[in-house]
């Protein structure tokens, strides 16, 4: 027996040695390297497949169209299983490859991004957290390397309140709103914003937590029935969303009065809930469907050439797929912005990509040129504002697909951004960071 194990061990070590020899593969000179700490297995694997499928499809699409002004994009995936420790391992494994000419890192996981905020700053690698992650990183003076692009949980909550206010003739005074949330970092982020809005708009806020994973919500909805709220805002995740929608139906709460966050607004949440989901609303920062020219073009170009990343092509045009494409569009545009300043047709170094992310100006005209009109809101970042937009759309599930209800709605920046500033200042104090002076950045 011992002998056999010895053989196995020898075989394994030889294999490892061969592997080590092949690792430092030479790369072409002008190449931008994206590390993709993604997840395709594990509890949230389905979400990751759609998101990273869209992301990689767009990178392929750019490469097939000649790259970013001639600079080809390379990437390497690493499976994180949505696990923080594995995410850090992936980051450490890929970072040496990315140090020369990195693309923004997208982890699609709040936990992993939290763990990477300090590490990526120390290694000087730009970290993007689109709609998740450490929201106080909006303050770029404390977090030069982290970009919670497009919008944050707090701004989203504020935008939802604004949407409800408009729906109620401009006032929410005397209304009662239940906040049903996943009892985790993710679910608790918007509470401060909702409380601040409650003081301003004079509505009553009732907070009801749901323990992970949330596949049994009888008690919570019983309470909701007693409270008789005007609206339920839901910060759900995974199986919790489907359960909430079904339980609401069972308890007779109208789904037209339920509004989910953008993690509670994808096909993965509504399709399993069946009929119960009809009328359910959610926020989103990108639209679904193949109606956007870019998505249709990706299908034609990339899938036509047999280079598509998705095995299950029915996922094309879903919310999360389109979100992956949107994230890739922003990343590539940031590199383009950097190239415009530091030299077209060259691979951009970390500091240059960071500059590109910080000076991104994605206008509707530019989106139109990309064929992405209406796919995502306009984004204009600066040192003060790493978020760049703060706008979301409301969408409603009509039983078969998501239908956009509104135009882009911006949250109350005057109310919410000071919260980020205060939080960032506290972070800077705890960590001993001296904030940059944003007025000196150009």
């Amino acid at each position: 027996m011992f002998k056999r194990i010895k053989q196995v061990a020898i075989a394994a070590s030889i294999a490892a040695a061969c592997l080590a020899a092949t690792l430092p593969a030479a790369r072409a000179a002008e190449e931008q390297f994206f590390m993709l700490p993604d997840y395709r297995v594990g509890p949230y694997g389905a979400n990751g497949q759609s998101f990273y499928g869209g992301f990689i499809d767009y990178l392929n699409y750019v490469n097939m169209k000649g790259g970013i002004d001639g600079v080809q994009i390379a990437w390497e995936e690493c499976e994180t299983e949505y696990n923080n420790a594995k995410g850090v391992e992936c980051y450490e494994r890929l970072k040496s490859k990315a140090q020369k000419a990195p693309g923004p890192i997208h982890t699609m996981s709040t936990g992993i991004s939290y763990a990477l905020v300090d590490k990526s700053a120390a290694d000087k690698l730009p970290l993007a957290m689109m709609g998740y992650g450490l929201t106080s990183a909006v303050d770029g003076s404390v977090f030069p390397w982290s970009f919670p692009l497009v919008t944050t949980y707090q701004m989203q909550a504020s935008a939802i309140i604004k949407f409800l206010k408009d729906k109620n003739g401009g006032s929410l005074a005397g209304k009662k709103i239940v906040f049903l949330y996943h009892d985790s970092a993710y679910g608790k982020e918007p509470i401060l914003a909702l409380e601040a809005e409650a003081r301003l708009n004079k509505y009553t806020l009732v907070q009801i937590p749901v323990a992970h994973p949330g596949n049994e919500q009888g008690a919570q909805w019983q309470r909701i029935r007693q409270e008789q709220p005007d609206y339920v805002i839901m910060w759900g995740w995974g199986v919790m969303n489907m359960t909430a929608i079904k339980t609401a139906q069972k308890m007779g709460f109208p789904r037209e009065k339920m509004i989910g966050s953008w993690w509670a607004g994808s096909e993965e949440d509504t399709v399993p809930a069946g009929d119960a989901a009809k009328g359910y609303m959610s926020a989103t920062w990108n639209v679904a469907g193949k109606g956007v020219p870019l998505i249709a073009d990706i299908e034609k170009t990339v899938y036509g050439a047999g280079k598509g990343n998705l095995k299950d092509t029915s996922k094309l045009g879903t919310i999360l797929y389109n979100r992956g494409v949107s994230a890739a569009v922003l990343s590539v545009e940031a590199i383009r912005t950097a190239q415009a300043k530091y030299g077209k047709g060259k691979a951009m170094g970390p500091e240059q990509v960071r500059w590109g992310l910080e000076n991104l100006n994605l206008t509707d005209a530019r989106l139109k040129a990309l064929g992405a009109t209406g796919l995502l809101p306009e984004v204009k970042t600066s040192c003060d504002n790493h978020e760049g937009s703060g706008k979301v759309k409301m969408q409603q599930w009509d039983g078969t697909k998501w239908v956009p209800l509104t135009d882009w709605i911006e949250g109350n920046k005057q109310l919410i951004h000071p919260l980020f500033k205060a939080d960032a200042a506290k972070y800077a104090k705890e960590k001993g960071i001296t904030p940059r002076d944003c007025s000196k950045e150009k």
Partner: protein
Amino acid sequence: MFYRETGQFKTSYAADQQIFPIRQDRIGIMLLLVVAFVVVPLVASNYWFNAILIPFLIFSLAALGLNILTGYAGQLSLGSAAFMAVGAYAAYNFQVRVEGMPILASFVLAGLTAAGVGILFGLPSLRIKGFYLAVATLAAQFFIVWCLTKFPYLSNNSSSGVISVPGIEVFGMKFDAPQERYLLVLAIVALLALAAKNMVRSTTGRAWMAVRDMDVAAEVIGIRLMCTKLLAFAVSSFYCGVAGALYAFCYLGSVEPDGFSLDLSFKILFMIIVGGVGSVLGSFLGAAFILLLPIFLDIFLPWLSGVLQLPFDGATVSHIQLMVFGALIMFFLIVEPHGLARLWQIGKEKLRLWPFPH
């Protein structure tokens, strides 16, 4: 031939009772320590420090803690991750709330806090045993995670419940670079492992083993069950607590309560089952196996499928990796149910006779 104790005579009790009675073992362990403390920091890359060596040492410590409780004292526990969480959050709070608190003191206090919580959740062990006790420790797992989420005070009123630890400074020296953090972790782990090794050879350890083998008999010969069991819980939780503090401060840098889930507890339990229940060495071997094998497969399988031109994409490789990992665990458990530590022991026995068995 080389590994033979012939001719090594013990002339004093001290010599007879030392940790490694065979000279070759002493030389071996010395070499190992020299390699770990001197050679590794000189040659290893940042990837090795951050992604492999530091987590390996931290999980070894946690596995060692669980091994004391489960392997030596025979009390099955599913709450190790929760005790790590207590350690991580306690260290953070001591560090943030007490001005000028030395980090090492924070670690010790974190361990003591975890020990206190461990004693509390160890109380049911006085009445229930085996699987029923495992269920009782599950309560610790869920209660502690719930508690850390519920009370914002514990995470210094962070709006998300996630804590982000301050930098490490010992005696005015900053521990920023990966190798410095590695050395700090290594020193703590080596010290605690030495303490554990001595503890299990002492009266305390013998009492634990007596309780494990048959608690009625142990009681009859005069071992106080309550003290012994609770002490095992306290020591075990202390180790897990320090591991948790290191996990937060030296490894991830930021942790959330959900990170210390039941999955992590099971992972630590698998480490001691694969490594060897009731063995200090087994804790290290098990941690290495459970942590390093997936990483190895993760790198090796895509490379293999690339060389052999197999039509696998990233997701398939990840699935295959899980299957291979599971199959290897089963393989080892069938071949050697007493874990890797036992394999090592068998190897040593064979070496003694080599090259002339019989």
